[in-house]
């Protein structure tokens, strides 16, 4: 990722959400993005996740220049290479846990029976065996976030993107989620990029990127950056 700018609005109302960011993330890294509110963390994350395109700059994903891809190609890229976890869980309401987890597989055209089996297995991985038919409003925040993790992992993507995954959870639940993420990362050798405010959560990462006003100001291991 080189010279990335993301600019909202024009003229006096211009907001430089990202102001010239150069960044390389290698396969298998566990990266935490930190920084004050409004510093461009989510914007950076969305660009990495191909949910958004930069105003200027070049982003190569596994050697492919993302700027050359159209809307549907980006969708396919997300489908096969990325899993998303959000602060607000973003599960489909009134839909069972297992159906939520199945969703990415539906778009991938996976057969019904296989789909159900893989979704159930993914739920088991996050410790929710037996809660398959619960709807999100019957689950606690931590459980909902674990359903979301199962959904992000069910397609076995090499890259997991988590925007403040513990932002809506209490400390105990946060720890549970982080332990789980770390375990999955080690087991599967996936890359995780995570936005967080909390140093306790960021400590799970191997590398911390610190953003201020759309610029990457610090980049190093937790020991060097966290007080």
């Amino acid at each position, binding site marked *: 990722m080189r010279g990335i700018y993301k600019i909202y609005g024009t003229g006096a109302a211009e907001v430089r959400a990202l102001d010239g960011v150069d960044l390389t993330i290698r396969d298998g890294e566990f990266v935490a993005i930190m920084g004050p509110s409004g510093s461009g963390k989510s914007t950076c994350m969305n660009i990495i*996740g191909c*949910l*958004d395109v930069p105003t200027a700059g070049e982003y190569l994903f596994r050697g492919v220049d993302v700027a050359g891809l159209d809307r549907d190609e980006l969708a396919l890229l*997300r489908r096969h290479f990325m899993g998303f976890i959000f602060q607000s869980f*973003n599960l489909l309401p009134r839909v069972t846990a297992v159906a939520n987890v199945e969703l990415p597989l539906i778009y991938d055209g996976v057969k019904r029976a296989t789909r159900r089996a893989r979704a159930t297995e993914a739920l088991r991985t996050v410790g929710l065996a037996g809660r398959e038919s619960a709807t999100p409003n019957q689950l606690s925040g931590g459980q909902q976030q674990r359903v979301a993790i199962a959904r992000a992992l069910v397609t076995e993507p090499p890259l997991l993107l988590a925007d403040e995954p513990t932002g809506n959870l209490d400390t105990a639940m946060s720890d549970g989620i982080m332990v789980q993420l770390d375990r999955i990362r080690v087991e599967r050798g996936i890359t995780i990029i995570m936005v967080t405010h909390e140093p306790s959560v960021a400590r799970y990462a191997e590398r911390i990127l610190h953003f201020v006003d759309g610029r990457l100001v610090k980049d190093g291991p937790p020991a060097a950056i966290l007080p």
Partner: protein
Amino acid sequence: MNWLDIFLMAFQAIVRNKLRSFLTALGIIIGVGSVVVMVHLGQSATQSVTDEIASIGSNLLFVMPGTAQRGPGGVRSIARPFELDDAEAIEREVPGILVAPALTSNATVVFGNANETIAVIGTNNNYFIVRNHALAHGREFEDSELGAGSAVCIIGTTLVEEMYAGQQPLGTTLRVGRTACRVIGVLEKKGQSMGQDRDKTIVMPIKAVQRRLVGKLDVQTIYVSALVDGTTRTVQRDIESLLRQRRRVASAADDDFYVRDTQDIAEALASTTNTLTILLGAIAAVSLLVGGIGIMNIMLVSVTERIREIGIRLAIGARTRDVLMQFLVESVALSTLGGLIGLILGVAGTWLITTRMNMPFLLSPAVMLMGFSFAVVIGIVFGFFPARKAAHLNPVDALRHE
């Protein structure tokens, strides 16, 4: 993403929001229902008119004064009426026919305590053959009664039922207008015809109606029946030239009378009911269109409500066409479901109305197919815009949406 999954997804969305789905489909239900009912009723009406007219008699000609540019309904009454002489001349000059001059007048009919206003037809004995309405009991008029215009009458079965209450009518005396009238016969039962009770009638010698009820020597209609099949056209021409002579119509002028056969009348009436059918069908189609706009409305609301859901789907790898199909199939499923329910209700409604109104119950597959496919098309057309809107949302904005 395969079709089954798309359908299941749409079906789940519909079921998840039952009330809203029902209200959305309601417009289509009413639209398709009314198209089916209206057009079917129109066709039934046309059919019953055609049937009725065929039952009047196929070799029958109506001769009436007036001009007939606009069919039997558009008669100009300023034309000179016929007289009995005209009917006699036709009978004398044109071979192979039966002639029944007729004059109808409404009169109050009283028997015992019962009284009713009834159309009294003055005519001769040919009427029973020409109009295909024979006697069940009693006898026809005698020549002396016809010649003198005697106060004798032959009555329809409705009158017998309503005024006699099981009593034997033959030989009794009815008061018709101011005339005491002896009942000499009873007509056989004919039933309803074009909304009219053909049994609620009294037949008298034409001279009796002329003198005792109307007070004029007019003849309203001359019924002519060709005795040999296929000769009505020749008979019609003969009558026309004879009447032009008798009524001294200048050779350049139009006839001041008209001769119609039942075929003409059937066609004229059928074309009227057809126009009506098209009109009603068009009104119903407009309501279907309004139903379509309803679908678009609700689908737009639904898209707005589900922006976040769309964002999630886009984030996990749904392509533009996946989201487009999801919402399009949802709206088409709604309109198809609405179309089906509308079809069933429409058929039920048609059955109910036709049986109540003594009309033939006929279903036209073409009409049903048209109404139904119209509903499906409306689902596609009006579902497209909201679906497109959903499919082209920006994933980040959609996810950010509250």
